[in-house]
């Protein structure tokens, strides 16, 4: 684990403290510095392992679809785009489901909870999905695109996604280039 080019002695000291205090924090996806480092200068070859790729069967009368998968990059990288053939959907975007509001006036006695290990939100906080321009992939860390979090959204489906079908998704990474993955359509 290296911290990229501290520009001042101060920064180097801070970096050393962070490393000494615990690598976990600096390795997190939410940490600003590490995740935006491009893979091109890294000594390790930029490769992304893709697992658990699946697409949700589209409900009747809808033209939106969602694909999920888990990405593990060998170096700090970013997923910057995903696409599917135009025979599947007109457009594909990276999305994230987030908590939109937390209305504390409605919390009542016991309405907000999170259970760790999975995405689980309760209470009256609204959730929404929003497009994201990229998804950080810290080196060696499995990043799951999963229900309630990041997902690949297919817009204007040409036809319904039915169980048994396989969808080819082209993933574009900032460092590792493009990669095709086959995702089976499942009920859930």
């Amino acid at each position, binding site marked *: 684990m290296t911290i990229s080019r501290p520009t001042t002695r101060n920064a180097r000291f801070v970096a050393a403290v962070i490393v000494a205090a615990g690598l976990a924090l600096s390795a997190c996806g939410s940490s600003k510095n590490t995740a935006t480092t491009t893979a091109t200068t890294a000594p390790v070859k930029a490769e992304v392992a893709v697992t658990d790729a699946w697409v949700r069967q589209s409900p*009747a009368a*809808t033209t939106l679809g969602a694909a999920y998968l888990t990405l593990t990059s060998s170096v700090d990288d970013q997923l910057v785009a995903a696409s599917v053939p135009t025979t599947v959907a007109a457009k594909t975007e990276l999305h994230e489901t987030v908590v939109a509001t937390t209305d504390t006036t409605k919390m009542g006695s*016991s*309405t907000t909870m*999170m259970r760790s290990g999975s995405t*689980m939100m309760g209470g009256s906080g609204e959730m929404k999905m929003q497009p994201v321009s990229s998804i950080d992939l810290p080196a060696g860390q499995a990043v799951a695109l999963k229900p309630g979090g990041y997902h690949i959204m297919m817009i204007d489906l040409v036809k319904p996604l039915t169980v048994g079908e396989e969808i080819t998704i082209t993933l574009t990474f900032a460092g590792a280039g493009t990669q095709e993955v086959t995702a089976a359509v499942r009920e*859930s």
Partner: protein
Amino acid sequence: MANREPRARAHHTIPALAAIALLVAMLAGATACGSSTSSQSTSSSASENGILGIQRDNPLDVSAVTLPDVTVGAPDKPFTMKADPGKVLFVYFGYTHCPDLCPTTLADLRKAMAQLGPTAAAQVQVAFVTVDPQRDTAEILNPYLASFVTGAHALRTVDPAQLRAAEDAFLASSTVTTKSDGTVEVSHTATSYLVDNNGRVVVEIPFGTTPDAMANDLAHVLAGQTTSSLYTPTNP
């Protein structure tokens, strides 16, 4: 102290436990990127009556909520938020242009009902309230719901005040915003609610609840409905 009724005590501890669980989850997320911290996962759940979802000391009363039922073949009268005798009503506020949360919840409900088996599943009534009535017409809602469960009630009002009143009763909310580029952004409470035949929200199920836990709570509420009431009103 000796007289304290166990279930009531369990209820009173939930807010504190939920707060602790939230804090722990946040800390875990900050230090371990949110990965496997399963040891904390049960602190806010499993009250002594076996329910895994959220229960309030004073359950929400939604019996006064009525909404137009646009289900194919529905009687021409508003739907009331009460389960039929011996049944449980599962309520969700959502919209069909929702590729992630809504289908996840409905697919999990389908799995939960499959786990219950056909006899018990037949006692589960489902009501889906659209928070996006402009786009979610009856023609869209009916086939949409049918692709998850049979017999679900499609509830739709084009009167914003009526929708707001219904949401308020559940302490839910939603916002539909049309952005400058024409895209519609919808945010909504993603909780599911189990309502008994008195019109009380006996369990609130957070988004992300597993089908197993959903099935557990549905079964427990159904058992309560058919034997003695799960919830005894404090003001008869």
